[in-house]
């Protein structure tokens, strides 16, 4: 049975808002002198004025968090900005202490909270590797035994004896990550480091983390990159406003997070799309890339609440990074459980010509018109796929949400129309005789 290497019990952390009182010595002496003479403390007045709001000055960055991590597990930690993810890692890495609760750790912890910590610009790459290694808890002998590996990983063999002040920011980060990646702690804390460096280097980093995990070591991985979380972690916890919201399999937690975190606007930016991309993605050399997905009305105004008689325009802006032979664009409307309701493709159009799917390099805007008087009055979600036939298949699930307000037809009572479809269809009404035969009308 794998043993538990981290056990967090009821961990809470309280911070104070705003500037923390650097009490001046003068004020403290003043208070002390006043007390000594039995007078009223001149500084107490000030604080009692603030009295009622004092409680509001504090906020809980973490509240009663409990979880355990097994040896060799790669635990994903997700949540919005400011949810408390980094605070949690900071407590575990001993940078700060908890206000309540206990965290127990077995084995040595090293963190990649901020890589390149302690790099000195005047020192050479070589000297910084040793210094940084030592700051991260390695002995000189350990760093020495890993030195060649570190340099090779960073790809900076030629510059290793150059002062790092002459490095580009990319080189700097690569060297810093290389040191951190070759630490040999039993537990590694990783926070957002993958946001830096070029694509190739990011791939290397993910690979390294995977290898570290395979080596039986434990990783806690904080990221906003859902595809990285999905590929590395089997279990993921979701933190929201300092509370542990979910602790489950990565698929479930990520799905929950994405649903909860649905975009409120009618426009999804490329970063938002990126975080939801799934499928067969060629990250290092993509042929197509999403720029923007938006919901528009007939006047091209972005919105996500439509009357049922309005046309809904799905605008997909994408870039072909090279010429593409057979590009299919799919727009699916799904319900909250991801159940598909409607699907349409660019190549369905009856007026189709090759310029619908054979595209040269450039930026395109594909518009798909969902006609009015189609949907019922409820919430829908939009899933979009770009398929470069036989090479890439990128799906962006539930990227936007929209609401349809059923307007009723012909001023008659139509109910709320809480169904998927409520189209205005052709109806026929005619009288029949007892045998069911038509009575010809005059």
């Amino acid at each position: 049975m794998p043993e538990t290497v981290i056990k967090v019990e009821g961990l809470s952390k309280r911070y104070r808002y705003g500037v923390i009182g650097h009490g001046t010595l003068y004020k403290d002496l003043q208070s002390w002198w006043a007390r000594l003479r039995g007078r009223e403390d001149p500084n107490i007045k000030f604080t009692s004025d603030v009295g009622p709001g004092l409680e509001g000055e504090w906020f809980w960055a973490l509240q009663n968090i409990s979880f355990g991590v097994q040896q060799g597990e790669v635990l994903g930690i997700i949540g919005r900005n400011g949810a408390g993810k980094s605070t949690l890692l900071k407590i575990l890495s001993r940078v700060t202490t908890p206000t309540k609760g206990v965290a127990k750790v077995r084995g040595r912890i090293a963190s990649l909270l901020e890589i390149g910590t302690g790099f000195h610009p005047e020192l050479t790459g070589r000297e910084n590797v040793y210094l940084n290694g030592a700051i991260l808890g390695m002995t000189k002998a350990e760093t020495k035994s890993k030195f060649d590996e570190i340099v090779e990983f960073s790809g900076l063999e030629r510059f290793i004896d150059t002062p790092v002040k002459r490095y580009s920011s990319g080189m700097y980060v690569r060297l810093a990550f290389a040191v951190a990646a070759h630490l040999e702690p039993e537990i590694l804390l990783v926070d957002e480091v993958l946001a830096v460096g070029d694509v190739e280097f990011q791939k290397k980093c993910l690979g390294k983390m995977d290898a570290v995990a395979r080596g039986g070591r434990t990783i806690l991985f904080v990221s906003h990159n859902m595809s990285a979380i999905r590929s590395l972690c089997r279990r993921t916890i979701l933190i929201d406003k300092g509370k542990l919201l979910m602790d489950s399999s990565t698929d479930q937690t990520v799905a929950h997070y994405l649903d909860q975190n649905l975009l409120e606007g009618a426009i999804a930016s490329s970063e938002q799309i990126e975080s939801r991309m799934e499928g067969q993605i060629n990250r290092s050399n993509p042929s197509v890339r999403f720029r923007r997905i938006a919901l528009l009305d007939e006047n091209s105004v972005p919105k996500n609440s439509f009357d049922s008689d309005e046309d809904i325009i799905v605008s997909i802006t994408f870039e072909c990074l090279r010429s593409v032979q057979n590009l299919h664009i799919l727009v699916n409307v799904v319900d909250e459980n991801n159940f598909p309701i409607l699907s349409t493709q660019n190549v369905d159009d009856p007026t189709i010509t090759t310029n619908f799917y054979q595209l040269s390099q450039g930026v395109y805007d594909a518009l798909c018109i969902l006609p009015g008087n189609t949907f019922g009055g409820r919430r829908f979600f939009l899933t979009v796929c770009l398929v470069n036939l036989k090479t890439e298949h990128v799906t962006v699930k539930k990227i936007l949400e929209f609401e349809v307000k059923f307007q009723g037809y012909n001023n008659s009572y139509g109910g709320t129309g809480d169904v998927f479809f409520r189209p205005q269809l052709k109806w026929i009404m005619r009288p029949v005789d007892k045998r069911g035969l038509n009575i010809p009308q005059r």
Partner: protein
Amino acid sequence: MDGAQKEQEQWDLILRPRTGWFDLHLQDLWRYRDLISLFIKRDFVTFYKQTVLGPLWYIIQPVLITVVFTVVFKKIAGISTDGIQGYLFYLSGVVLWNYFANCLNETSHTFVKNAGIFGKVYFPRFTVPVSTVIINLVKFGIQLILFVGFYIYFVARGSQVRPTLLILFLPVLIFQMAVLSLGAGILISSLTTKYRDLTFVMTFAIQLWMYASSVVIPASKVPERFLYFYMMNPMASVIEMFRYSVFGVGVVNPIFTCISWVITLVVFFGGVVLFSRIEKSFMDTV
């Protein structure tokens, strides 16, 4: 139950809200000894790389101060130097005082200066002031050699000063200065996280402290009834002992030595306790 108990014993690290006053984690310091040596190397290398005149300044500064002191205090004010050559007398005080003041000044900025790095990575914070005290030995060594040069020159010119056996305890004196400056430095460093205005006080407090430390006025000129009080300043005792060991003249007394050591250790342990307390909550207040 048995398994649960066993599990409890095996935790390597338990992170709790508030630990006791004496939870110092000094064993961590030993584990991070390589870090201390690398900090020393870093400071040495960066210093060496940056300034051309660097090491020369270490020589110019004490010489200039010694000349000024000799002119002002000996020639103009006519203050006694215990019958020792003015230059030798002041230089001995200045060299020792420089080491102490540099260490104190630098260690007292430990938290404020390193806030960035402390906020990102854990390593025993104590490594920073400890390495500061050690790297300053290099400067001190250079200045001590300068002093030895002066000493030999004046002896050759017929000065009557002669070293005593107490000189064998020179390493102990240096050690005491290191411990005292480290203790006082981290004490002040811890206090400055709360009282920022202490930083300004520090600059002139060190100046004033110098005049009460036998650098300029020998303890032999302090009135008898104030002598015990005066010697409660450990630096006064250290400088007097140093002068006695190299010149054979000075106010040295086992009781004074004991007093100075007691105060040194009190300051040191006070500093260590406060420092290790502050280092845990420091990141939330800075």
